[in-house]
Structure formats: C-alpha cells, structure tokens
C-alpha cells in the first residue's frame, strides 16, 4: 500500500522533531492549493511563497525535500492534528481560535482582503460593509478568515472548498462575490485566465465590528512539536526581518515589502490574543 499522507516525522509517541525529520529526509506540509501561497506546480511539485519559505528554512535545518498534501481549507488544522502532515504551509492567518488548537510560527506574510466580482463590478462592491448593506450572494472559503468576518457581521455565505470553486461560482453566476486575500485572488484570476469575465477589487484591510482586521499569516505546527517550532522560527525570523532576503525568497510570487510583517504584525502572541486596533 502506498500512503498518500502520513507525516514524514513518524507520528508515534514522541512527536515530530528536527532530528526525526532529518532521518526521514523530508517534511510533508499541508496546503490548500492556493496560488501564490502554496500549490502544486505544473511539474507536480509543491510551489508558492510559503513553500519557498519552507524550503529556505528547512534547508538550513538540514532537510532538503518539502512534500505537500492538498486538503480542503477547513481540514488543514484537523489534518495537522491528526498527523496527516507536520506543518500547515498556507499563509494561514493567526487568529485566537486557531491559536488554541495549533501553534503558529513567527509571522510570514501580511495580507489584505479583496473581492472577486463579475467584470465591471455590476453591484459596485468594495468593502465588507458593502456586502452587508447590499444583500448579495457571498462565497467564502470554508474555514477561511473571510468566512469569520461574514459570520461576525451577520452576512449569510455559501462556502466552497477551494479558490477555483469560488471563481467558478462567480463566473457562472452562482454567487455575486468571492472574498479572499487580495494576492490570492489576483493570482487566481491570472492562472485561470479569467480576466475576461471577472475582476478583483482594490485590496482593503477589512473592518469588522469597528476593529481593523490587521493580520499576518504564518506556518502552523502541532502544539506538541515545540522544539520543531522553535528551530523553524529561528531560521524564519532571519529571512522575514531582512527585506532583501524576504524579497529574494517570495518576491517572484508577487509579494512586496508591503506584505512583509513589521511592527505589531510580527508579534504572534499579540495576534493570538485577538486584540485589534480600532478602525478609523
């Protein structure tokens, strides 16, 4: 039998450590298949910004292969905890609820939200507030942060399991708008060659319940794998905190200095606490 999942570090009693990964010679990460964060490339190998970060970090740790297992967004953390892989590499944003269930690394990437709408933006949608007042059909990705926004704001949503399905829902009229991180949406439209039918609105920092939803994404580990996380953080911090290195690793995926975590967004513990600045 050939297993399709199975974490590389062995999921016996003692948990995954750098040395157990080294012994296996590889690390398996869970991804959602969201370009440009992490996805399966044309050659069948994992690719994307967070994968590039992983590769850089693990290389320093002496692990040369990064494999990916694609699952639905909402299954990323349950899959991690059930041992299907050892890390979630999906630019997952750091949220209090998630911090209770898993351990987030030093922030990798900040992001803003955008909306995917039919060409010409017929309903004239630009912010989360618009979605509420105009009563539109919103799609979000199941388990993604935008679903949480909608829920808090009392907007009904349909959910899909992958960005492609969100795009399709807008394309074939099943939905009016698909909310996701700005970079994801832009890349999605490009790779799916959907420019003729849809467009992506200007990115914004969502404001929900009077709070500005600043946020940063990070790699996610099992809470029990503390030493692995520490080792990972040590190497990751070096890249993130250095604009040049950051650009060298993720620049080609469309990430710029604007997406590099700085100040409050480099504080995992703060983001985990759920305290957010007030919206102006």
């Amino acid at each position, binding site marked *: 039998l050939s297993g399709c999942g199975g974490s590389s570090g062995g999921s016996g*009693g003692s948990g995954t450590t750098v040395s157990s990964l080294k012994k296996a010679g590889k690390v398996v990460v869970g991804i959602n298949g969201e370009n440009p964060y992490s996805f399966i490339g044309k050659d*069948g190998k994992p690719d994307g910004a967070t994968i590039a970060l992983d590769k850089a970090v693990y290389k320093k740790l002496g692990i040369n292969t990064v494999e990916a297992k*694609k699952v639905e967004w909402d*299954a990323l953390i349950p899959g991690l905890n*059930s041992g299907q892989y050892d890390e979630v590499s999906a630019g997952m944003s750091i949220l209090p609820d998630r911090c209770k269930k898993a351990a987030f690394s030093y922030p990798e990437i900040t992001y803003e939200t955008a909306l995917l709408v039919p060409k010409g933006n017929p309903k004239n949608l630009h912010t989360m507030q618009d979605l509420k007042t105009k009563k539109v059909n919103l799609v979000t990705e199941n388990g993604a942060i935008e679903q949480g926004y909608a829920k808090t704001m009392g907007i009904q949503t349909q959910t899909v399991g992958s960005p492609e399905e969100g795009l399709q829902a807008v394309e074939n009229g099943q939905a009016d708008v698909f909310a996701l991180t700005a970079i994801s949406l832009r890349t999605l439209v490009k790779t799916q060659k959907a420019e003729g039918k849809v467009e992506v609105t200007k990115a914004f920092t969502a404001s929900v319940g009077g709070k500005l939803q600043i946020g940063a994404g990070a790699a996610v580990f099992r809470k029990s794998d503390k030493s692995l996380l520490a080792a990972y953080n040590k190497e990751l911090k070096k890249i993130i905190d250095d604009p040049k290195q950051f650009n060298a690793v993720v620049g080609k995926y469309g990430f710029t200095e604007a997406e590099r975590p700085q100040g409050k967004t480099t504080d995992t513990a703060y983001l985990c606490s759920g305290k957010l600045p007030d919206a102006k």
Partner: protein
Amino acid sequence: MPDLSSIAPSGVVSTLQDNWHNLLDGLRVTLELSVFGGALAFVVAVLLGLASISRFAVLRGISRVIVEFFRGTSLVVQLFFLAYVTPVAFGWGSHLLLFGIVALGLNYGAYGSEVVRGSLNAVPPGQWETTTALSMPWITKIRRIIWPQAWALMLPGLNNLMVMLVKGTAIAYFIGLYDLTYVSDELRKGGADMWTVYGIAFVIYYFAALAFSAVLRRLEVRAQRRLGIRPSKSRTTRATAEAVA
C-alpha cells in the same frame, strides 16, 4: 501527486493523453480500496456472521452491537471519524489509505455479516439437526456441513455488496484520498472538459464493478453447481436490502 494545473479543455483522447498517469494513480487507489476493503469486509462479515449464530450469548450480543453500530452510522461519518478523530484520540498517526480500507471493511463487513447470518440460517433445519444426530462438534458442523451450503446461498448477496463497495470507494475523496473521483474532480476544477473526465471515471467504475461482480459470479456458479441448487433471486434482493438498512 497529481499534476492538475495545466489542463486545457480538450477532447477525450487528448485529455487521456495529458492525464493518463493521474487517472491511473487514481484508479490504483480505487482498486486498492476495493480489493483490500473487500477482503477486510469479507473477513469481518464471516467473523461477525459466525459470532451472531454462536451458542454464546455474549458473542451474539457483541456481534449484534458491532453490526448495528456500523450499519446505523453512516459510512461517511465513520470515515471522517477515522481520519480526523482517531489519530488525535489514539495517537496512531495518519494513514489515509488504511483508514479508507478500514472504514469500507468495517461498514461493508457489517452489512455482509447480515448476509452471512441470513444464509447460515437459511440452511434447512434438518441439516443442523443431522449434524447433532451425528454428534459433530460445533467447528466440524460449521466447517464441513453448514458453511459449504450457506456459502452458495450467501455469494449472490455478497456479490451485490461488493459492487456497492466498489462504488462506495468514491467517498474516499471526501478525506482527500487521491482516488479516481478525486482525480477527475481535480481535473475538472483545473479546467478539463467535465464530460470527458467524469465520463472516463464513470466508465472505469462501471467496468471495475462489472469485473469484481464477474469474479464473484464464477464462484457462485461453482458453489451452486456443487450443491445442485439455485438460490432464489428474490431472496437475494430482499436480503441485500435488509443488510444495508
């Protein structure tokens, strides 16, 4: 790992050309689930079926509880439970293919045990009584007399269940096993012509089910010829419906 990103809408032939290795990978998982799941289901069915006619009330009770539990809770629920809950609860790590096989094996095994039980009970009482009259120990009685006769009666029902199991493997894609359904669905999401990719999967499933069914059918014919009987089709249909309910 499927390579699913570079598919342009195209005809059957070119879709096949571009993706045959993905489809083949998917088919392999589907067949592994079918063969190993079917084998496990058979073992479970026989064990639970025999336990259900045991002289020991405890064994009968245990078998009953197991059977009703797996029959009563949906296979999909069992699958999710195995894949996402048990690794956390028992710390035995994640082995998706194995979980798929186990879920199919236990669930269809529980169904099958009803067919096995029904067939054992359908062996005429006179046969049971004769084994007592000849003082046969329980094992001999079952192994030499009752089982060979029940075997011919249970095969048609097991055949029906096997076809259902082959189809049932498709749910493995819900837990992210890269089976045939997963692959074709990914291909569609990736932009391949939906009729083509689903059509190919559809045809493959159909012939896979036919093939499994044909193998069991041969066993069935052989077993029946040996006994000089012909089990009734209406009994089989009824028994199958009863088993899966």
